[in-house]
């Protein structure tokens, strides 16, 4: 392991990374380990596990506001607002070291082989410039750092190295979900999660507190602030928190020279670097490129293709609840997927849409959650009354659902469309006066049809397991966890922003190493692929460091 002193403030460095989430962390560890001087600017702070509300009696109340994944709901000073007036889905994210993994559920579902060849296999969208097999060695390496728990041998995936820790218990709720799949002869598998069952790489073993999505108070959910940043910093990487980047600057030759940022005290600062890498997610990265206009780049940095901000994908989401007579103890975690299914993942054109979706079963949650369903209260009829949901009906509903329910979530592939995009809002700004992003996003007919099909199949699955009540929420707005594809990668500079190594076609010392570069979204939770792609790209940058053009 290389060791060096962390760069001093203001000192020009080999590499500046913007964003300390999962991709930025992978890149920082890799590059600092290769002896490069690294500074990372992160607008949020390093989360303190003692702040997470999981052990607070008011946990469920806090999860609906202070720890809500929608920054517009949370409305904290380090969040930037997002104008969603013209978006069917609200983006979810967290500003801080570890990024949105702070609040994710830890579903560990790498992209499958066909996800890299959507054009070749299904005739739509684009192929990636590399294949599943090209990425697999990096995925296996990342899984060891992350401490993934799971059962090897899942026939939904090609053979690969076993996971580093055993699968978490699927519990009574997972077994109930599996019963339905077993009766129908459909694929299911114990959930693979970025939540270790054994102490691993600074993580504690999961104790199933069931509060994963508001930050794990046990330090058992794999987040990059635990699994990557300590080593990166030991190797000399400097992490600057509370630093909000306003612009990437370029020289007369159009090469990146560093970033202007606003520090914790509201002072404008400049960090110079020979290479700049953006890891700010599928909204933050195009926002920053669009903010970085100059004489050479009047439409935004590296935007000669006009594709910066376009082809945003967010995975429209539906969910099906099954309620059972049997006690399922369904407040117990992980939250976390108990089991998963890829039965209807691959394209079957007879279904009337292209591509497919992954299902993940999760427990039903606490009693306050039993009064609603994925944030939506269920009323009877078109003209609901208070009495539908409250009074004696409230007690009956909670008695029936609480501890007796499971929820299947559907992550359906969102195909890229240029009209779905990120722009700069002409009026809304963050607390530093920097233009906020505005989303224009419509759920496609393909996604709509796909989710309808999957909901129908899942209703069959939960009923096969003996559900006494079912509920469906279709295309829930607050589910834009996965911010993908707004600066797509490809071989053709006219049709893409970066090449397969994340290198901007127009700015050879500017790299994007987050999900913004994904040509397609898969039908799975993307963190495994985000981290694996970032590792592959960072390793290439190290291998080519002597040929790297710089300002």
């Amino acid at each position, binding site marked *: 392991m290389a060791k060096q002193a962390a760069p001093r403030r203001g000192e020009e460095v080999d590499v500046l990374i913007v964003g300390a989430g999962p991709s930025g962390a992978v890149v920082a560890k890799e590059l600092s380990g290769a002896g490069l001087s690294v500074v990372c600017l992160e607008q949020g702070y390093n989360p303190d596990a003692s702040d997470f509300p999981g052990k607070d009696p008011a946990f469920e109340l806090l999860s609906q*506001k202070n720890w809500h994944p929608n920054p517009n709901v949370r409305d904290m000073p380090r969040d930037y607002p997002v104008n969603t007036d013209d978006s069917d889905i609200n983006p979810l994210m967290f500003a801080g070291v570890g990024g949105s993994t702070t609040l994710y559920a830890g579903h560990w579902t790498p992209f499958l082989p066909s996800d890299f060849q959507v054009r070749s296999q299904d005739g739509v969208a684009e192929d990636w410039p590399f294949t599943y097999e090209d990425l697999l060695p990096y995925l296996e390496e990342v899984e060891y750092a992350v401490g993934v728990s799971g059962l090897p041998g899942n*026939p*939904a995936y090609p053979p690969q190295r076993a996971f580093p820790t055993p699968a978490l218990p699927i519990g009574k709720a997972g077994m109930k979900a599996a019963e339905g799949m077993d009766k129908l002869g459909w694929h299911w*598998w114990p959930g693979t999660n970025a939540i270790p069952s054994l102490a691993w790489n600074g993580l504690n073993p999961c*104790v199933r507190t069931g509060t994963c999505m508001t930050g794990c108070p046990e330090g058992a959910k794999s987040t990059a602030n635990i699994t990557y940043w300590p080593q990166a910093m030991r190797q000399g990487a400097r992490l600057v928190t509370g630093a909000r980047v306003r612009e990437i600057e370029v020289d007369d030759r159009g090469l990146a020279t560093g970033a202007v940022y606003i520090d914790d005290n509201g002072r404008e600062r400049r960090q110079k670097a020979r290479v700049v890498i953006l890891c700010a997610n599928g909204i933050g990265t195009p926002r920053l490129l669009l903010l970085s206009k100059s004489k050479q780049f009047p439409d935004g940095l590296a935007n000669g293709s006009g594709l910066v901000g376009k082809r945003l994908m967010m995975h429209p989401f539906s969910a099906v609840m099954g309620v059972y007579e049997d006690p399922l103890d369904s407040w117990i975690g992980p939250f976390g997927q108990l089991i998963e299914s890829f039965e209807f993942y691959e394209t079957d054109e007879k279904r009337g849409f292209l591509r497919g979706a992954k299902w993940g079963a999760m427990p039903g949650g606490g009693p306050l959650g039993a009064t609603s369903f994925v944030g939506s209260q269920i009323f009877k009829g078109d003209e609901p009354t*208070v009495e539908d949901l409250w*009074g004696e009906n409230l007690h009956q509903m909670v008695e029936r659902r609480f501890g007796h329910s499971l929820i299947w979530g559907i992550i359906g592939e969102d195909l890229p469309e240029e009209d779905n995009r990120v722009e700069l809002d002409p009026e809304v700004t963050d607390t530093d006066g920097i233009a906020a992003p505005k989303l224009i996003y419509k759920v496609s007919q393909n996604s709509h049809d796909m989710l309808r099909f999957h909901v129908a199949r899942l209703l069959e699955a939960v009923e096969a397991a003996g559900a006494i009540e079912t509920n469906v929420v279709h295309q829930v707005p607050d589910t834009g966890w996965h911010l993908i594809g707004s600066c797509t990668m490809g071989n053709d500079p006219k049709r893409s922003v970066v090449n397969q190594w994340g290198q901007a076609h127009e700015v050879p010392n500017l790299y994007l190493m987050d999900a913004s570069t994904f040509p397609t979204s898969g039908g799975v939770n993307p963190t495994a692929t985000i981290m694996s792609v970032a590792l592959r790209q960072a390793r290439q940058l190290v291998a080519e460091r002597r040929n790297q053009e710089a300002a």
Partner: protein
Amino acid sequence: MMGTPLSQDERQLFKSLADYLIPASGKMPSASAVGVHEALLDSVLAARPDLVDDLRRGLDACRGSTASEALNALMKADGGAFQAISLAASGGYYMAAEVRSALGYPGQGEAAYDPHDTPTYLTNGMIERVVRRGTLYRPTIRTT
């Protein structure tokens, strides 16, 4: 949080509305029986100070009518205020130890397990059946 945000008058009104929303039933106590208008309300508003304004506006709108009339009118006219009243009532109620005990809910805590235990699905044939059905993925198309 801001001292005592609600007056005794407001708390009494909240108590009556909360009892309409959450009456006693079988083994379950009523909202006021566990004190949702007292210390639990303080706990709720300490956790969620953002509810105070909506709650107060909702209470003002509910004066002078029966609970059913007032709450149904409020739900239609001011969803945010109705949500604040109902969430303050239910949020406090399900934090109460008596209520959690009646539901058999210990709260979000540790659930011990042995990660090296052999899961049932490995011994009862369930996983074997999945494996026997074969692979699902479409392999990479190789170009020459």
